[in-house]
């Protein structure tokens, strides 16, 4: 496998983020190749989620540069990176609890003319037409992740696994260029894990999306991700195919013998 021939869609260059004396991310550089599912793994505290927060604009890096589709994006805010084509999920799944599953999905798509208050008064037909299209799209998406029967349920009432599927469905509504999944497999049962894996693969294959996925749940990571980047102590440790990562003594060291260091 030779990734150097394709131009990366996302590049991190020497990114640093310190919280007081804690070097959460300490000079990380890596490239993400387009139309692939790249895994990001590492022990607790390795800096994976902080890296996501930096890419998505939730935090601003202290140092370093982030390029997305050739454009520098570090310093943009969370809602701005979304409009660049970047969509993220959260480690602890978040959902809009007192809104229905359907509303959770219909919120996501950008470019809704009804988000302008004046259009709701003076262009109700335009808003109505777009709402109908959004609703159809949301229903189809819900069907594909197996949540259609829960469309009118409060999102807060879903089980842990269903919330992960809802999260996936929401990213599908965004039509992004890249999705950053933060532990999408946490708390899902085997059936739900299969739906997740299938849908993520399908997104990459059919919609030409790029995925960067943080995983603790090794089964899902080893199953869908290639390549896999390993982080430890805020730094990139190595990168390789699932086999290479699985057989690398350094990886075993940080996962099993990290404490003895």
């Amino acid at each position, binding site marked *: 496998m030779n990734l150097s021939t394709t131009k990366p869609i996302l590049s991190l260059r020497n990114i640093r983020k310190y919280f007081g004396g804690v070097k959460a991310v300490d000079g990380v550089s890596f490239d993400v190749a387009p139309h692939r599912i790249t895994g990001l793994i590492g022990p607790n505290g390795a800096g994976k989620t902080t890296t996501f927060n930096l890419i998505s604009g939730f935090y601003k890096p202290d140092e370093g540069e982030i390029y997305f589709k050739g454009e520098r994006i570090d310093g943009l805010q969370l809602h701005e990176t979304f409009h660049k084509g970047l969509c993220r999920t959260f480690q602890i799944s978040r959902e809009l609890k007192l*809104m229905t599953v359907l509303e959770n999905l219909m919120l996501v798509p950008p470019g*809704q*003319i009804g988000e302008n208050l004046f*259009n709701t008064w003076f262009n109700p037909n335009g808003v109505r037409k777009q709402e109908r299209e959004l609703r159809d799209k949301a229903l189809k998406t819900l069907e594909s992740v197996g949540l259609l029967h829960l469309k009118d349920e409060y999102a807060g009432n879903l089980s842990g696994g269903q919330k992960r599927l809802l999260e996936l469905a929401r990213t599908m509504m965004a039509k992004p260029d890249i999705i950053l999944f933060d532990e999408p497999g946490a708390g899902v049962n085997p059936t739900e894990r299969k739906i997740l894996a299938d849908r993520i693969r399908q997104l990459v294959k059919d919609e030409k999306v790029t995925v960067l996925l943080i995983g603790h749940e090794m089964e899902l990571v080893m199953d869908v991700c290639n390549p896999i980047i390993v982080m430890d102590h805020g730094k990139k440790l190595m990168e390789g195919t699932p086999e290479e990562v699985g057989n690398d003594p350094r990886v075993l060291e940080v996962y099993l013998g990290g404490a003895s260091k």
Partner: protein
Amino acid sequence: MGILNFLISFAVMATIYSIFAIGLNVQWGYTGLLNFGIAGFFAVGAYTSALFTLKMPTGAIAGYIKQAFGLNMPFLIGVLAGGIVSAIIGLIVGALTLRLKEGYLAIATIGIAETIRLFFNNEAWLANGPQGLVGLPQPLHNIVPPSFYNYIYLLIVAVFLVIIYIAAEKGIRSPWGRVLRAIREDEVMAAADGKNVVAFKMQSLVFGAFIMGIGGALYAHFSAAIQPGVFEPLFGTFIIWTMLTLGGTGNNKGAIIGAWIVWAVWSWSTLLINKVVPPSFATRAPFIRYVLIGLLLVVIIVRYPKGILGEEKQVSKF
């Protein structure tokens, strides 16, 4: 006759309070903005409309009544100006406070409202200080005998309520309202979905402030006299919170129902209390109402946290 007049005047005030409750619902019910400074927008709307519609005092009166200006404009222009100036104040308040967490926003808004009240009280050049302004023009007042005027005014405020209700409903049922509710549920999530959280909060605050400004203006022309004492936190802010909480936060119909019930408790209890207590207590008796309103709020929050109607499950309907 007396009873009927009382009922009509009660209905006018309940309708005006319904408008305030809808304004608060836009800010708090949909967006989760803790505005404890309704009285400030109430005062700004009332005073703006007064100054827009009153004449500048001339001759001997000018020695007694001070006004910054008096534009002698029609009622409708005055009410609209009340809404717009209140919206502008909302914009300024938002620029100063919207990045604060909700608890701090509440403290900031209550402070701003008190500042506005004291400003009108102390800056006599602006609107005659503590004496306030009197003789506000009332629209269509010469088509019926004065004793029937409140019927006309009830019709006017009802038209305003209907328009504001429809405008707020359109907003909340639309994608705009969906974004506001998403912000209320989880700001970070709304931002991750590409929504500009500060911009939407600002719109909600300003739209709510506009509605409150209209309410203030309608109140001013109904009572025909305003002074800073009216806009104290209880009458101008917390009674409206009680109305929305009772009727159902997140529901415009609930806001209206709550306004009517609480205003009924407020105004009818006065009559009742005055009949019951000995004359020597008569001047102190109205303060029992404060206890009643507080008690009502506690009972609602403990027993019926969602209020009478509460938010509908499926709000997005366009």
